[in-house]
């Protein structure tokens, strides 16, 4: 069985806001029977056409697809359309206390349906997900734009992660090379952006710790995981970052090299030039 949180199971067993809103202002429909999950989202605005007064969903899919749809309706109820437009798949997953990695595409489906519904209201478009741009994954109909978006929003760094988040590459697998190229391209753009204004900005300690954690999750851990290793952030004291190696790295005789050449180098590149990494010996 999947390691679902209690909140996921609750929203699956007792889904909120099921059905179709009568005289809906916006309708969004994504997915298909072939894909294995589909979501139809309908909402109605209040009298001033400002806030989402009522929202309902219909979902074909697994437990986490149903839970993600239910969570989405709870999140956006009462929001203005501008607020709702900013909801990301992360928000849906976080609301549920997290989703298993392989199920993150359920949260992305929620965000897509919401966008389609808002688009439907604002521009009168069909309310179906549009395949704008170049289709990369023909099995699941995922475009380049969509892959770039999930990669950016969720700091993805491997093809496997991209598949988990938007299904691209999960069918015949012929597009895996293309996905690799897109990930590399996104990484390059991100690095360029960081080197322009990332380094010297004044940040609070809290922001700094978050940045360190993000950099480790995005840049360092996937690299170590390839060799069966991992690393955990233990503490941050000024410019000293204390870490602990896990998995294969914990027994690796070249862990010190990894620490300096990989962990420290990456943190210096993305966080601050004066960072010193130490291994927790406690």
């Amino acid at each position, binding site marked *: 069985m999947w390691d679902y949180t209690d909140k996921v199971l609750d929203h699956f067993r007792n889904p909120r806001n099921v059905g179709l809103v009568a005289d809906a202002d916006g309708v969004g429909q994504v997915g*298909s029977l072939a894909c294995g999950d589909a979501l139809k989202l309908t909402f109605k605005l209040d009298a001033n056409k400002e806030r989402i007064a009522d929202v309902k969903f219909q979902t074909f899919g697994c*437990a986490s697809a149903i839970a993600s749809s239910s969570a989405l309706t709870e999140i956006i109820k009462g929001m203005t359309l501008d607020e709702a437009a900013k909801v990301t798949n992360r928000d849906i997953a976080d609301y549920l206390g997290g989703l298993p990695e392989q199920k993150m595409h359920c949260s992305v489906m929620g965000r897509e349906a919401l966008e389609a519904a808002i688009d439907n209201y604002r521009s009168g478009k069909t309310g179906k997900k549009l395949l704008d741009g170049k289709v990369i994954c023909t099995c699941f109909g995922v475009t380049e734009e969509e892959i770039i978006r999930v990669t950016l929003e969720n700091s993805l760094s491997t093809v496997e992660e991209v598949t988990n988040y938007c299904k691209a590459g999960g*069918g015949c697998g012929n597009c895996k090379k293309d996905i690799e190229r897109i990930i590399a391209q996104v990484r390059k753009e991100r690095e360029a952006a960081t080197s322009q204004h990332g380094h010297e900005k004044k940040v609070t300690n809290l922001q700094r710790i978050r940045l360190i954690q993000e950099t480790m999750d995005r840049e360092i851990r996937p690299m170590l995981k390839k060799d069966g290793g991992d690393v955990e952030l233990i503490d941050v004291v000024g410019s000293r970052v204390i870490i602990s190696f896990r998995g294969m790295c914990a027994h690796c005789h070249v862990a010190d090299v990894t620490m300096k050449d990989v962990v420290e180098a990456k943190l210096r590149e993305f966080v601050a030039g004066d960072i010193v990494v130490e291994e927790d010996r406690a």
Partner: protein
Amino acid sequence: MKNVYLDNNATSPVAPEVIDAMLPFFRDLWGNPSSMHYFGGQVRKYIEAARLQVANLIGADPTEIVFTSCGTESDNMAIRGAVESAPRGTRIITSRVEHLAVLSPCRRLREQGYEVVEIGVDSAGALNTDELRKALAAGPSVVSIMWANNETGVVFPVEKLAKMTKDAGGIFHTDAVQAVGKLRIDVRDVPVDMLSLSGHKLHAPKGIAALYVRKGTRLTPILPGGHQENGRRAGTENVPYIVGLGKACELAAWNIKAEMERVAAMRDKLEHGLLTSCPDTMINGDPARRLPNTTNISFQYIEGEAILYHLSDIGIAASSGSACTSGSLEPSHVIRAMGVPFTAAHGSIRFSLSRYNTMEEIDYVIEHMPAIVKRLRALSPFVR
């Protein structure tokens, strides 16, 4: 909580008699059967007794039984072992609906340069024998085709397939892990060269299996080492589990016909009950040629994992061929090979019974399933 276990094709409960038979070999008789002292040597005879019990279940000679660690090992041993001792240019023929324990080693051999042919099935799950005939005519081959399908329970005409292969001069292996203990199998009547069987599918524990190797079959060991199992499979014998498998085979052989008729009656009642109480349902696989314990039903417009979680909430254990449970993003390769429409593929549920199930349990499932289906269909955008 109630525990209605209808997932016996995944694994089956260990028979109490099997546990009792195994225990002395942990506590007292733990010696190494190869040892040159009485303490170890006395264990040997129990292994040979178990070998006879396994052989008796399928009509084999005890010398034709090789103990292995799991069905996957038996399949790998048969396919890779036969290919390695076969002449150059030998091709591998298998079906598209095999278990991954067969498909993966075949695909590995393809990467290593062997030609691999995968025979298709029709919408009822029946094997395309014309395709097989053509493939056999193309040259020497090692054929591996399952006796019965784990997902649909569809039984292949192994006697005919093995004869076709032998007539063409090929080697025939069958993965019979789902069939042994559920169907009467006699290798004296069916000209298979090798047959895999697995303990935990017939009420022995996980971690023990066997490969039947007909006398005279050329087979290169894939696990070289000591002289155990006549040099065909090295490694110190897993004595308690071998004894357990022997006992399980003895129990299965006992009254198999009557027991399986009883199981089939429960399966038929379950199937009929669900098809009549739940609209938009269909059976996957030819109902006339199936294992007595298996039914695979598609509940259209809803998704399998969601059904399984609701079933699990009320203590019913089953399985599904949906994408979310197949470990990939697509429905099971068996369901896809049969061309089951997507409306039904994602909502396929397999119930697999054993002799330990009861009619009361079947009634319980029939009573509760319609509400689950209704509940999920109320959520589905594809139901009007």
